[in-house]
């Protein structure tokens, strides 16, 4: 079983839970599993092409998956996954 920490913006989809369990061998699988249990979560995390959105950071046991194998990063029993929004300020010149 994998422990997944859910950020505030996604908690409306997990009935307010900040942590949920999932059974999965990779990040991709984990997102699908989460989406079955909490419909809509995949659309928030991934864009139309199925890629992770630009401002979504995912960590496995505190390590950014971009230093591992991205969304193909493998998971094992007892792993802890954190989903954390990037905290950009952004800036538009469309004034």
């Amino acid at each position, binding site marked *: 079983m994998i422990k997944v920490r859910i950020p505030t913006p996604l908690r409306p989809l997990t009935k307010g839970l900040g942590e949920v369990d999932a059974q999965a061998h990779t990040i991709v699988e984990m997102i699908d599993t989460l989406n079955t249990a909490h419909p809509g979560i995949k659309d928030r995390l991934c864009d139309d092409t199925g890629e992770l959105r630009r401002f979504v950071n995912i960590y496995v046991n505190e390590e950014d998956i971009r230093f591992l194998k991205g969304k193909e990063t493998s998971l094992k029993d007892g792993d802890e996954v954190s989903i*954390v929004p990037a905290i950009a300020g*952004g800036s538009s010149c469309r004034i």
Partner: protein
Amino acid sequence: MAKMKALVCRECGKEYPTKAIHVCEMCFGPLEVKYNYEEIKKSISRKKIQDGPESIWRYADLLPVEGPTFLGPHAGMTPLVRAKNLGAHLGLDELYIKNDTVNHPTLSFKDRVVAVAITRARELGFETIACASTGNLANSVAAHAAAAGMRAYVFIPGDLEAAKVLGNLIYKPNVVEVEGNYDDVNRLCSEIAGEHHWAFVNINIRPYYAEGSKTLAFETVEQLGWRTPDQVVIPMASGSLLTKIWKGLHEMKALGLVDDVRTRINGAQAEGCSPISTAFQAGRDFFKPVKPKTIAKSLAIGNPADGYYALKATAESKGAMDMVSDDEVVEGIKLLAQTEGIFAETAGGVTIGVLQKLVKQGTIKKSDVTVAYITGNGLKTQEAVIDAVGKPHRIQPSLVSFEKTFKMGKNGGGDA
């Protein structure tokens, strides 16, 4: 009508109320303040600004607070130094240093953003203020919280310079040293922010906090006599400062405070942590996170949240990005000190090093009116230069000892 209309998602455009939130629920895009520029335009003018207080609050019309009470009343309006000696050394006719090494109260540009953040946090009813920091931000949050009588938690990486650690403890906030680098601190704080009802200045208050950086653009333009510079060189950590200076310049144009903006925005990083500059030079619009390894710890963000927007702003302005080695950082600090009498922290060494590179490459030209942003004070990062500045001449308390050391002739002295 209020000057703030809403928070708006930079990616998908969804609007939210102006509360302590920073991420779009739909697409995770960053939220930013949407202003009522039509309304602001009616009242703002060069004269109104010039008649305002000698601080960032002279630009309050363009800052995301309701007022009229402003915390951090003395931040900003730091000197714009005409750097004739350094300009001559580099071959520039008109070089300026925006000198935030003397910002009030904690000697870095973070006093601007924290003044805005803590003012907004108070307006939103928070009693506890917090931050994830590479040092300068923590110092500023701790000092402002002490003055405002607010509880503070500051989270810092475990390997900070001694002066930046002490510069927190003296104000007695809760200082939390996290075993890890800034990116670890940042991730942890994002999770803590989800559990506690605190004003994390660079997380849930970030849409307001980041706007404070615009004042560096406003002041530069005003201090240049309402001119925009041709070139600016800006150090990059998260990339937020760069994007906000770009935004500030364009706001001034939109409000009729300047006629045109032709400023080229240039970004500076250290080689040991240059995810944004590396992406720019490779012509990519996305960056790859890195594990930082540089003496420029205040810029050591391997996963820069605003990197994407910094790349965009620099490209739009037809500017450039570059990076320098740690040795060049030390040389940059020394060069600025020895030509202009300004002692910058390591980030300033990065800025001067990259400025020098861009001039050598011909990217910045002799006649370009150029501004280099020096964002923090060298007394906070003494470790970086301590082995590169020599030692005092130790002598006996006698005239003989002095003259022997300095080989004084009748016509005055020479160096030892």
